[in-house]
């Protein structure tokens, strides 16, 4: 593939909108050609910057004023219907500005209702929230899918960005999906901290990696063990007795006895040995 052809397809490849063969041709070219590879990063950076310019319409007559409350250093904006925005740190003024930009609506100090307050403080304490009560304006379909899938990752477990992309049916859009995760408007309650890079480690977080590690530990993830596995490039754990393979943090993987545990580096290795993916954590498509 020539550079010119590849460059016009970089953006579509980023969001996984090309045919499989075309996608492969573009990614091969990007790996080989440095200047085109750089242009992918460049497009991504521009896309992120442009997205942050989005404005909300001026609403002269808001039928309902939204409220803001605080738990420790966490700001929480909410309406009667549910939570609308959460952010840790910064001043109230900064938070209100962010809110106006997203929803075109002013905030007034108010008191969180007991159930909403419980959801947020549970999430902050690492107790997890089963059914977050949210009131988000509808955004793009892809973003909604990402949020819903995030909410389904169980407490005490982690998933990878590629898993997320696969789950929402856009396996090639890993980078675009990662961007949606990064700008989660209701962190903690929608557990974007439960997504980690496939290559291991904890990955970055809007409120710093240590905060993510701390939160995951409180949710019952053995972070050190996870990192030790990642250092050995182990990405899946199989069971000799059932021939089922899981993510290492899957509830079912944790029950496997030490002597029956089989580590796998890549999915193909497990499939070759006759293992099938766990139906609960769905580590990869069968």
């Amino acid at each position, binding site marked *: 593939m020539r550079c010119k052809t590849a460059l016009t397809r970089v*953006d579509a490849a980023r969001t996984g909108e090309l045919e499989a063969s075309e996608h492969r041709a573009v990614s091969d070219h990007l790996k080989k050609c440095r200047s085109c590879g750089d242009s992918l990063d460049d497009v991504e950076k521009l896309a992120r*910057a*442009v*997205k942050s*310019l989005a*404005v909300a319409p001026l609403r002269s007559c808001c039928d309902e004023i939204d409220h803001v409350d605080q738990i420790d250093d966490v700001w929480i904006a909410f309406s009667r219907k549910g939570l609308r925005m959460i952010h840790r740190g910064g001043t109230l003024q900064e938070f209100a500005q962010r809110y106006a930009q997203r929803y075109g609506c002013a905030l007034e100090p108010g008191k969180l209702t007991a159930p909403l307050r419980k959801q947020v403080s549970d999430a902050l304490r690492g107790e997890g929230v089963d059914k977050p009560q*949210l009131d988000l304006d509808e955004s793009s379909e892809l973003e909604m899918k990402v949020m819903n899938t995030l909410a389904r990752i169980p407490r005490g477990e982690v998933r990878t960005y590629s898993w997320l992309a696969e789950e929402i049916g856009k396996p090639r859009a890993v980078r675009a999906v990662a961007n949606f995760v990064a700008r989660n408007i209701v962190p903690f309650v929608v557990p974007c901290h439960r997504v980690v890079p496939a290559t291991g480690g904890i990955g970055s977080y809007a409120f710093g990696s240590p905060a993510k590690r701390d939160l995951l530990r409180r949710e019952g993830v053995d972070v050190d063990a996870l990192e030790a596995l990642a250092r050995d490039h182990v990405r899946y754990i199989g069971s000799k007795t059932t021939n089922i393979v899981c993510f290492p943090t899957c509830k079912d993987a944790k029950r496997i006895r030490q002597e029956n545990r089989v580590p796998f580096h890549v999915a193909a290795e497990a499939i070759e040995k006759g293992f099938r993916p766990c139906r609960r954590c769905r580590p990869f498509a069968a």
Partner: protein
Amino acid sequence: MAHALGAPEVELALSVHRCQSGAFERLIERFETSLFNYAHGILQNAFDAQEVVQDALMRAHKALTKQYDEERVAALALRPWLFRTVRNLSLNKRRSRRGDHLDQPLADFDDNRLGPFTNDTGDDFTRREEAEMLRRAIALLPVEARELIVLRFIEEMSYADIAKTLGSSEAALRGKVFRALKLLREALEKGSQPCDVRPH
């Protein structure tokens, strides 16, 4: 998470058609911000954009409830259709306004609504500066490039949906988006120099 994932767009269109209570409000809630951003991208003026979006939504309501039959509503690609309506109305407005103020891209810049919702490093001040530069650069692009930037990177529409909105093929669109990005990058590098290169 019932709130986050609404019903698919076809169902939304159908429930508006059947005049179900609250259906049109849901449609507004779902699309107003996006449509406003798009109109704002073309017109570069918040008040005009607001007017266009109101008008477009009223037309959409009339079409969905009175003019279109069920079959047509069911076959409708709601999102591209709404964007197309806003596009046509915006371009009309732009044409009629052209005489009195020829693209005043810098007019409503100081509205204190810069984009802080990014996790990029760098202190608040540099980020604001950068956002301001970018906003200027976009404002100075030709309208064809500007609308593509808005549809693709602010609304994050798929190429398929943009193609339906603008009535063009996906392959052609990929080239156009690439050229629009190239223009944007050039405009950023040149600073605030006016940019008179056309994307075609």
